[in-house]
């Protein structure tokens, strides 16, 4: 698997060119606001990448994003538009947050974490059951149903936190808190929790399964042409359920990892909407697990570094959103041009 130098150059420029373009356009906006773009970008890099403590935050932020991304890779490769990851993520988070503080009183922390992760995964899977059923049974388009389930899930998560799982001792509507010491173990003496290991393993596993196994190929065939899959004797219905379950389960694991690694508790009305950011990243990475890691890391740097830079320069944090949008557009543009030229060349 040695890449030719030309390919390396092209794939590096495929990422670098849009970044430079986005930074230039974003810089013009900053100039218009009377701020120094170079100082801004310098702060972003200083904090997000080059300072050890900041880089740790970047890595921590990557963990849930990567897990969601791995779930989306499964779904998208199987041709299923699971746009409901945010609801699945949140409900799984509620499950972990509600359960962990209870279990920890009688179980060791590793067991608590394992059980919570498992339950979170199951909860997320269960939440994807309705769209899976409607798709497998009636061919109902999952974009609608998963979007609906995500709206429903966000509200439902709030209801759960506010009513049955509310911590009466805290005036803020949130669940009980898992003590810091019992959360996912930290790596060495950093603040990075081991969720990043889980996330990386998940991405590699998904990448392997989708590209190197019979199961992955079946999912892709179902995604590409369900009638051909049926013709070839695959059980389209069962594979559809499996796709939803895997995809939602991984997103749910993301929710569990974020709660068990970072928060220790779930607050009502908390919705980071990571799914909305990860969906385009997964596309831009062409559903490739390895590329997803790069993109995710880059956007995590931007999130962490951007917050710092905004604060230091007195630019409202909203600017990061503009930058993210520019990046997505330019990445998509360059990826598209690249796609065209490769199609021209490819025999």
């Amino acid at each position, binding site marked *: 698997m040695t890449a030719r130098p030309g390919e390396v150059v092209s794939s590096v420029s495929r990422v670098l060119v849009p970044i430079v373009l986005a930074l230039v356009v974003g810089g013009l906006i900053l100039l218009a606001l009377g701020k120094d773009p170079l100082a801004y970008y310098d702060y972003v890099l200083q904090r997000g990448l080059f300072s050890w403590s900041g880089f740790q935050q970047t890595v921590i932020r990557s963990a849930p994003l990567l897990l969601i991304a791995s779930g989306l890779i499964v779904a998208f490769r199987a041709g299923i538009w699971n746009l409901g990851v945010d609801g699945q993520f949140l409900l799984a988070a509620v499950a972990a947050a509600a359960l962990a503080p209870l279990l920890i009183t009688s179980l060791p922390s590793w067991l608590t974490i394992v059980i919570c992760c498992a339950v979170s995964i199951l909860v997320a899977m269960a939440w994807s059951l309705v769209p899976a059923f409607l798709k497998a049974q009636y061919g109902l388009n999952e974009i609608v149903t998963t979007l609906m389930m995500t709206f429903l899930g966000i509200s439902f998560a709030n209801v759960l936190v506010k009513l049955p799982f509310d911590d009466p001792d805290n005036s803020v509507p949130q669940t009980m808190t898992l003590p810091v010491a019992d959360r996912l173990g930290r790596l060495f003496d950093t603040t990075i929790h081991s969720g990043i290991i889980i996330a990386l393993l998940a991405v590699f596993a998904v990448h392997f399964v989708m*590209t*190197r*196994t*019979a*199961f*992955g*190929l*079946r999912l*892709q*065939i179902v995604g*590409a*042409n369900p*009638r*051909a899959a*049926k*013709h*070839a*004797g*695959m*059980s389209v219905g069962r594979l559809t359920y499996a796709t939803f379950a895997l995809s939602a389960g991984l997103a749910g694991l993301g929710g569990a990892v974020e709660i068990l690694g970072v928060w220790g508790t779930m607050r009502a009305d908390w919705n980071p909407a990571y799914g909305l950011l990860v969906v385009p990243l997964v596309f831009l990475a062409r559903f490739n697990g390895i590329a997803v890691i790069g993109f995710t890391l880059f956007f995590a740097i931007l999130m962490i570094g951007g917050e710092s830079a905004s604060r230091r320069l007195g630019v409202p944090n909203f600017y990061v959103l503009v930058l993210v949008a520019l990046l997505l557009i330019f990445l998509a543009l360059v990826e598209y041009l690249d796609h065209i030229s490769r*199609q*021209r*060349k*490819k*025999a």
Partner: protein
Amino acid sequence: MNPAAGQAPQVSLHGITKRYPGVLANDDISLAFHGGEVHALLGENGAGKSTLIGILAGMQQPDDGHIEIAGKRVRITSPRESLRLRIGTVFQHVLLVNSLTVIENLMLGGAWWQKHDRKSALGRFHEISELLGVEIDPDVPIGRLSLGQQQQVEIIRALWHGGNVLVLDEPTSMLTPQGVEELGAVMRRLSGQGVAIIFVTHKLREAYAFGDRISVLRQGQLAGDIPPERLQALGEEEATNEIIRLMFRAAGEVAGADAETMVREGHGRRARADFDRSGKDAITLNHVVTRAEPGECALADISFSVKPGEVFGIAGVDGNGQKHLAEVLAGQRPALSGAIEVNGTVAAHSGVPARRRLGVRYITDERLGEGTVAGHSVATNLVLKEIGAPPFWRDGVTLWRRIFSHARQVIETHDIRTPSEHTLLGRLSGGNIQKVLLAREISADSSVVIFNKPTYGLDLQNTRLARERIIKAAEQGIATIVISTELDELIELCDRIGVMFGGEMAGIVDNQANAEAQIGRLMTGAKAA
């Protein structure tokens, strides 16, 4: 017959060249199409016929060369431009909108700011369908019509727009023999009115019967043509030989005499395989019934059996339940009631994988719709039905190297024309896709193979190859079922022929001298004597 002779051609192509990644689809083609002439265009699969037609229709732009219409140089930059030049086209793959009705499809293309005028459209529709002698309900959504009917709508549409030039890319592939005759009459009538007609077909008989002039494409180049005078001078036999010579001349692929046998078309019967008529049945159906779905013809009550080594044909007009029968046999569709036995094993309720384990193979008639995955490689498509099984998978892990080397081998032995095994299957020409299907399904461990329209859209050589595969399969002792709407094909290949009508087996005929007449009668719904 040829009033336009001497006049400037209606359409002339000058040095048309079109390249696709890895393929030179059209290579410096210069051709002239005259008004009042039916110009038959022949060529093997992938020869570049559809590409040329796409260029005339404005769907493709040539990389080189130019087009003249009535002596004036034009650039056909879009289908709109083509229609404006009064060129009507029937595309090889139906281009209609399923969710719109027939009449709505025909009205497409009007000025967008206008209300559509259904009334005058209906008038036009009746006029043209009368001319064609077809009967179609204008208010049925296209999606509910059979492919044959859809093709008729396409022809209506081409006439709707095409005043000067009518281009027909394999219009007969979905028609019944009678439909073909009717289309021929229409072409003749139109050419009599001065229309230039370009008629693409794989059937030499059609080309000879309807064509005033014949051109042959070969690997993107114009291999030669037979002008009207010569065509009239030659008899059918000689003309056929001439065409075959043009099609296969170069590279010495086929020596003269072999060509004859290679592309020998219809009318013959294969030598009777001497399979064991008293032996056990390989597959038996007993009173099989399927669930009727809207718009489909279900099986009402089907019983028959096929012995190992026997070729059993299914004849009938398209849409009389053939699809359900094929799917029920393959395990792709459950039988509502009735019994199915494969090699003595009860198999009525087993799905595709279980049937495959029993040796049942099914070559679908929907090559792109369900037979293959267009967006995946040729290599993947060749193992589509074996995903997870050794030798290409070990413990569920894909051994891509083996899959690719297997593919290279199959491409070699089956002469599949593709730039490489990594090429996306959708990029292949129809005939080559069919070769992929055949290569995939016929192997040593199969015991029952169902062919659904195995040669639909194939060129002479590929048709011959496919039929040889069928015969070879039977000779290997495989029970072979051939579903076809082409009676010639069935007569040539089969030992017995069952005729389907309205989801029932109207009768089963031994393939003997008078079989054709009997089958013809059964196909119209008359009961077996």
